[in-house]
């Protein structure tokens, strides 16, 4: 009696598992010229690269449509559900577009992709905190999301990602040198791990947060401007404009007391605004966005002599840059 009950239980479990995990698969032609774009798919996504040429999708937590929908198909953002998994998959000119998912369900997709394809994942309107994980992809990865955590493991990039609310973690297996990378968050931490021997040229800014690292970065000195003091104008708050003070500019005396630190000068034939660095006693055309009154700065530094340009910006989070531990 007990064994029969166990048997029934197992049978039930197996059949319910079958109902829970449903699969879809499609051959893809093309490699690095192919882009797979997830357009506002509302579900947790787990994407993994493989050496084959198939796109596979496995859905978990998919609930059946209502009885009234018998004989009908769900209409998703880009078209009808043509996978049976609440997803529409369509192809336009070397771009595979995937849309769908469901905000009502606890839905997740496990997706297998040829590792060489480029990946674009956008979710800019959903306020749901869906998670995104990408493993072992070797093409370009572009991510644009407002909410939810993003984890990229063993990727090569180039990675261009904006994750405004939710951590952004990237572990590089190799740092692709082909074209620049950019990682942005306005509210959250950005955490990057890369092989210690990688070549890169970083531009790092953490707004009101901090930057932490164990990488041996070498600072790139700011470009010093040779300025004719006769041409120099400084900003006078009382007059509300840039002026040439009588008797010429004496930055050591005038700037700290009566004038703001910004100054105007001619660089070639171009009017340029620069920042006076009081500590160094020199003029620099620093980046106006980060050399700010708010204490922000833009650290430019090279790793192993420099390489691909990697720009990382967070406003209210911290920035972590690590050596990989293997």
């Amino acid at each position, binding site marked *: 009696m007990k064994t029969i009950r166990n048997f029934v239980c197992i049978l039930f479990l197996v059949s319910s598992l079958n109902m829970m995990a449903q699969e879809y698969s499609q051959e893809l032609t093309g490699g690095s010229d192919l882009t797979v774009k997830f357009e506002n798919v509302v579900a947790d996504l787990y994407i993994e690269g493989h050496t084959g040429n198939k796109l596979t999708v496995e859905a978990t937590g998919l609930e059946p449509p209502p009885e009234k929908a018998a004989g009908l198909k769900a209409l998703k953002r880009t078209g009808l559900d043509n996978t049976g998994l609440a997803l529409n998959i369509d192809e336009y000119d070397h771009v595979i577009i995937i849309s769908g998912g469901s905000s009502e369900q606890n839905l997740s997709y496990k997706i297998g992709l040829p590792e060489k394809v*480029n990946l674009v994942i956008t979710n800019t309107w959903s306020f749901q905190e869906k998670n995104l994980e990408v493993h072992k992809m070797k093409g*370009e990865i572009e991510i644009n999301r407002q909410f939810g955590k993003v984890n990229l493991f063993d990727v090569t990039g180039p990675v261009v990602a904006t994750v405004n609310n939710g951590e952004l973690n990237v572990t590089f297996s190799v740092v692709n040198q082909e074209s620049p990378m950019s990682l942005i968050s306005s509210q959250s931490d950005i955490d990057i791990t890369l092989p210690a021997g990688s070549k890169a040229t970083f531009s790092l800014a953490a707004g009101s947060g901090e930057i932490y690292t164990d990488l041996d970065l070498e600072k790139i000195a700011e470009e010093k401007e040779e300025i004719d003091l006769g041409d120099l104008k400084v900003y006078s708050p009382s007059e509300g404009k840039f002026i040439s003070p009588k008797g010429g500019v004496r930055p050591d005396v005038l700037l700290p007391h009566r004038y703001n630190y910004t100054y105007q000068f001619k660089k070639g034939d171009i009017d340029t605004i620069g920042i006076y660095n009081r500590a160094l006693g020199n003029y620099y055309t620093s980046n106006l966005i980060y050399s700010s009154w708010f204490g922000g700065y833009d650290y430019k530094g090279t790793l192993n002599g420099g390489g*691909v340009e990697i720009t990382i910006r967070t406003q209210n989070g911290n920035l972590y840059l690590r050596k990989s531990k293997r």
Partner: protein
Amino acid sequence: MNCNDVLNNLEAYFSEMLPEETRKAMDDHFFSCTDCRKKLEESIRLEELIVQIPFEDPDENLKNEFVEFIDSERKRIMLQGSERSYVGWKRIMPLTVAASILFFVLGYFGGQLLSKPGIEEEQIIALQNEVRETKNMMILSMLKQSSASKRIMAVNISEELDRLEPELREALFLSLNGDKSENVRLAALEALSRYAGVSEIREELVKSFSLQTDPIIQISMINMMVNLNEKASVPVMEKLIADENTYESVKNQARQGLKLLL
């Protein structure tokens, strides 16, 4: 006219700009000097070859040579010892056909120029202009690519230019206001901020400030406007503070910014 004069004018020989008398003097010289005639024939053959180049991308080696040439030119003449990383150039694969042919022509004549002692100042300037034009063209074409990383690369190259042509300025503002990647928009803002001293660009930046909806770009704009002492940005900041959709951190930054500006 001696051999040196003739060789220095060799590339001009093919242009309509060359004064008739100089051409005549060169012709006379070619008549009497076998060496120079040989050089001329080589150049003519090369000209023909250039015309015959089929319209397709040159092979990888050739392309790398051009890129390396421009690279070394740039190091030697244009930026005089600047330490910027230049990896980007070597990696630009999808060059336009036009750009690669320009590289070829540039490479050939540039090489000729530099192989001789006593380079004329004007020639260097002409070469600089051509390099700049080529860069402009490349940036404009790269900004249209579907890869966000390539578009950032285009914006980064524009930061190496010593001036911003109107066409390129327009393209950068288009990126700042309309690119679908926030990363590209921020890169465009950082590039444009270098020209914020130019009053027209500054006005455009204030206009653009009122269009931005991404928090990190809004905050970057606030920082920049404060550093620029730009009073015209005050209404935009006030509006941001009043708008209930604005992020709290953006509002805080705007409040601080207003204190510094007013």
